């Protein structure tokens, strides 16, 4: 017989046998998967950043399909647009969420909190946090070694060489929360972006008594409580010598900003004030 013919027959036979096995296995061990998982995954950004609380976009899609609802499931990267598209696939109505942005609550720059010690170890905030309170001496302040910057998958953060503090690029930030988790001192917080990106927040997390906090950093919150009194909307609370502005209650009236004796309260993206008053530091207000 023609050798070519033999080869064709043998190989064809082998192929047929294997095809039959594959067919059988496929029928027997088929994984029935909800086709909506693929559809939902397609709508997601595919960043696999973990901002939703799941390991990746597909896990998130599986969770949505399994729960048949979007309760508590939100993709911070895609935001409301993605939510609406996913809801359409699932036949649900998406809940509108206020967009958020990461905020660095520390102003302990080289100028505001001069370094008293030099750190030479591995450039990692987690490590430095374990070793000492920081170059400026503030036990709650930014260590400036950039764990947050390293954790950002969206190029939304950089370390400012002038101040030594991380800066969030608002346009790039998707509020995935990676930096919040990376910071060993919980300095970074996700706050509502606010109308026209206007925000007011206390840019300090120091819980020491006023005099101590002031000794290490000139812009520390000293817990004097002036802002609490000034706030007409009860949006500010004072706990452990530290004021906190609740962004859900804040109406952006800016009354607290003028009151703060240490300029610890920041206003972002507001038009310049007509009369700029120089804030005075009243030593009596510093709690001892």
């Amino acid at each position: 017989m023609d050798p070519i013919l033999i080869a064709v027959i043998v190989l064809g036979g082998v192929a047929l046998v294997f095809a039959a096995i594959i067919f059988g296995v496929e029928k027997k061990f088929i994984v029935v998967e909800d086709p909506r998982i693929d559809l939902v995954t397609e709508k997601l950004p595919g960043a696999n950043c973990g901002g939703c609380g799941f390991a990746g976009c597909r896990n998130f899609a599986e969770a949505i399909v399994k729960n048949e609802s979007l309760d508590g499931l939100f993709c911070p990267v895609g935001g409301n647009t993605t939510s609406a598209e996913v809801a359409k696939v699932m036949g649900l109505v998406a809940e509108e969420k206020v967009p958020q942005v990461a905020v660095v609550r520390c102003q302990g720059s080289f100028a505001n909190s001069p370094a008293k010690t030099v750190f030479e170890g591995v450039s990692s905030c987690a490590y430095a946090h374990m070793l000492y309170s920081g170059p400026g001496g503030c036990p709650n302040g930014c260590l400036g070694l950039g764990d947050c910057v390293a954790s950002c998958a969206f190029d939304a953060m950089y370390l400012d060489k002038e101040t030594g503090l991380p800066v969030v690029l608002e346009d790039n930030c998707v509020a995935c929360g990676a930096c919040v988790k990376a910071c060993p001192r919980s300095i970074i917080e996700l706050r509502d972006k606010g109308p026209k990106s206007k925000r007011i927040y206390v840019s300090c997390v120091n819980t020491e008594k006023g005099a101590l906090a002031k000794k290490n950093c000139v812009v520390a919150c000293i817990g004097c409580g002036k802002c609490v009194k000034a706030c007409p909307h009860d949006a500010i609370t004072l706990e452990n010598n530290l004021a906190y502005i609740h962004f859900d209650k804040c109406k952006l009236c800016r009354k607290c900003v003028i009151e703060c004796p240490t300029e610890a309260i920041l206003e972002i993206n507001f038009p310049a004030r007509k009369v700029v008053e120089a804030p005075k530091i009243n030593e009596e207000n510093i709690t001892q």
Partner: protein
Amino acid sequence: MLKTFKMGGVHPEENKFAENSRIETIDAPELMYVMLNQNLGAPSVAIVKKGDTVKTGQLIAKGEVFISANVHSPVSGTVEKIDSWTDASGYRKPVIIIKKEGDVWDDGIDTSDSLVKEISASKEEIVELVKASGIVGLGGATFPTHVKLMVPQGKKAEYLIINAVECEPYLTADHRVMLEKGHEVMVGIQVLMKALDVSKALVGIENNKPEAISHLTKIASSYPGITVQGLKVKYPQGAEKQLIKALINREVPSGKLPIEVGCVVQNVGTALAVYEAVQKRKPLIERVVTVTGKNVKKPSNFMVRVGTPISLLLEKAGGIPDGTGKIVNGGPMMGKAIPNTDIPVTKGTSGILLMTNKEAARVKEYNCIRCGRCTTVCPMGLEPFLLGLAGENLNWEIAEKERSMDCIECGSCQYTCPSGRPLLDNIRLCKLKVGQIIRNRNK
């Protein structure tokens, strides 16, 4: 051939400058800063208030949980304030500030120098006295001693091992204690032996302290059961597991305590503190601290009350010399640089080392050349280069798999690395993260 542990180890320059300076007692200054977190475990809780009058040796803070220790007033006077103060950790921690007035000792404390050889206390009484006196491991780890003396059920202590190795370069506190308080140490060891119900005690001393070995060997003949054993000089022989391996050739399993192999290890300074607590009823309020360094005018060993600011010790040793790059709490291998000199002496302060700028500077870091020196010197048999890379690349899975939690942080790997890599820094980071992961998993 002298005994030593088999795996790894390095031999750094010894630099024991203060070995011939007699222990000098420093009078307590006006204000004493008694930290409340002087022991491993839970911090003590203050039981005095502002304005209270206290006597020397009076209980001022209580250890309330099992792994915690009492704190006693190091001076007599009034409580000035209960506040926070920066300690060697670099953070502000609770402190009792006492203003010194005179030196009135609490009732029942024998302040004489006479040696009390007869052990009248029973086994239970000894543990109780050790606990009441707030004794912690004086080698530096400050683990409460009474916890070590309570052998868990089903376990039996066979050997009491006295750690007099002092393998850290520069430090000489234990060396001087052995030479000047040899008999007290020996009675202390007998007290510990009675508490643990063991008949054999081994004192391990490195061979760079020949006077201490000969002195203790001479007096040990009058104390039954105590053997003094010279050891080959090798760092980190003073680590618990390495010392057990060197002395009785037993290996403590990973993650287990020495009692697993029938041993209890105590520092030689702790033995002295136990002697004073049990035989003299004197709580732990003072300890020997070495102040040393290459450029220090007068390298010394001081007997100081706990709570004395380090600045006073430096002053007594001739001040801070020019060109001091770092002041380290502890020895050069495992000690930690301190951020200021107002930090008080605590129960765990074994030495203050003033490093010159040259010693303190970090060497330039190069890539790992896979020479394997770190693996050769690791006394725990780990692969430091791998753990170092895991820490650098934030790969905690590898860090856990490669047993980063077994690291004793002796620093031999970083000391020996020809590329100047910050291996220990990265391994510490690994330990921190892996520890967190394990705790979260077990929650």
